[in-house]
């Protein structure tokens, strides 16, 4: 319960009631698509330059070239996005391959994953958060190839966690038997990042 009130604050950006239950605490609705990246936007070259690897503690490590990846079953993902910097974006559409498909092929033996990206970015996730139709590797946003600033040509999408978990320019996932903080998690952000529990920073 809030016990403190801000003198003279009425609140301007109220969310329409029909959307209120889709907005996690502490978030506001954004209609644009802000870009937040820790460093330089990497140049990954053209579309066929990338591959995706899932290795580490798995029965069968695998790597998919862009061509092989495109032959996998794609699906449309309709979802809301939540960024730890306080904005949420409703009703976005991506296309990509479910992590269930990829993980089935490698058979994870460990319970934790580290996503790693071109440019050196990393983020950690429990394998639990990657399965059951809740995580994808996506290549399209709103019917277009994923823009470079938003992680194109290929990014991870885990919309039920804050967006920093959805690693841009993803190069692969390493399955591990232990948890380890990734880039932002080592720099003050929460280890898991559930927007509904407002897991923003270390001791939230």
């Amino acid at each position, binding site marked *: 319960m*809030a016990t*403190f*009130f*801000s*003198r*003279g*604050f*009425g*609140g*301007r*950006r*109220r969310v329409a009631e029909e959307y209120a239950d889709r907005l996690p*605490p*502490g978030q*506001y609705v*954004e209609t*644009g*698509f*802000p*870009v*937040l*990246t*820790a*460093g*330089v*936007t*990497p140049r990954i070259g053209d579309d066929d330059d990338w591959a995706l690897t899932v290795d580490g503690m798995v029965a069968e490590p695998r790597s998919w070239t862009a061509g092989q990846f495109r032959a996998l079953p794609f699906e449309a993902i309709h979802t809301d996005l939540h960024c730890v*910097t*306080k*904005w949420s974006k409703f009703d976005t559409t991506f296309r990509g391959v479910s992590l269930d498909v990829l993980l089935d092929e490698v058979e994870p033996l460990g319970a934790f994953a580290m996503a790693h990206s071109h*440019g*050196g970015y990393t983020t950690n996730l429990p394998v639990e958060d990657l399965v059951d139709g809740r995580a994808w590797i996506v290549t399209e946003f709103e019917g277009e190839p994923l823009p470079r*600033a938003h992680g194109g040509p290929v990014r991870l999408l885990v919309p039920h966690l804050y967006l920093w978990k959805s690693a841009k320019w993803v190069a692969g996932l390493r399955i591990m038997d232990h948890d380890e903080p990734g*880039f*932002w998690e080592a*720099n*003050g*952000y929460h280890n898991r990042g559930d927007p509904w529990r407002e897991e923003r*920073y*270390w*001791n939230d």
Partner: protein
Amino acid sequence: MERLTTFAPRAPGRWQIGTVSAIRRETPRVKTFRIELPMWMPHLPGQHYDVRLTALDGYTAQRSYSVASSPLDEGGVELTIDRLDEGEVSTYFHDVVVEGDQVEVRGPFASYFVWRGESPALLVGGGSGVVPLMAMLRHKRRTTPGSTMRLVYSVRTVEDVIYADELDGDALLTYTREAPDGWTGHTGRIDADLVATTGISSGTAFVCGSNAFVEAATELLVDVGFDAGAIRTERFGPTG
């Protein structure tokens, strides 16, 4: 000379109620708010605080603001806020908050876009992106004045210069819209010539501003030879 920051960033603070002890107008659109904190803890230059506003019916809004002050200014933090006309939180600060008001904040947060004594360090800011860079510059001036740090600061017009009376020999300005009369320095966007004038061609770079500004500036730094891995960025959302 004062001590260099020696602490490691700890788990950040809980929500606390600070008191606005001073408000300084920086430009027609920008004000600095000094907030005294009952549970102050030192920050690293470049870290931010979160601010939470709560209306009487329980509606809340939260935003992040970089700390502008050096951690050697103990007991409080200075936040410099750009007023966005349609904004919710920035307009509240500009139009409602007066000295003596209480505000709810917590921090400091994030330990990546922070200066830990790196030298040489090139700071590149656009608009209100200068705020965390100013914390670095102020801290550097007080702790290690002999180390190499320079600020390149892009503003539209002379009216938009934040911290104008503190921009000294270690800061280079460029006016992108309209330079003041008699200006002999750089005009237009930050380019290779301007970066060359700093004498810093490698080392760590900190770039902060709108996304478009950060994209353009980081591309330029990579082109003039900075290692992409040594360029850290902070982006203040889509506007700017």
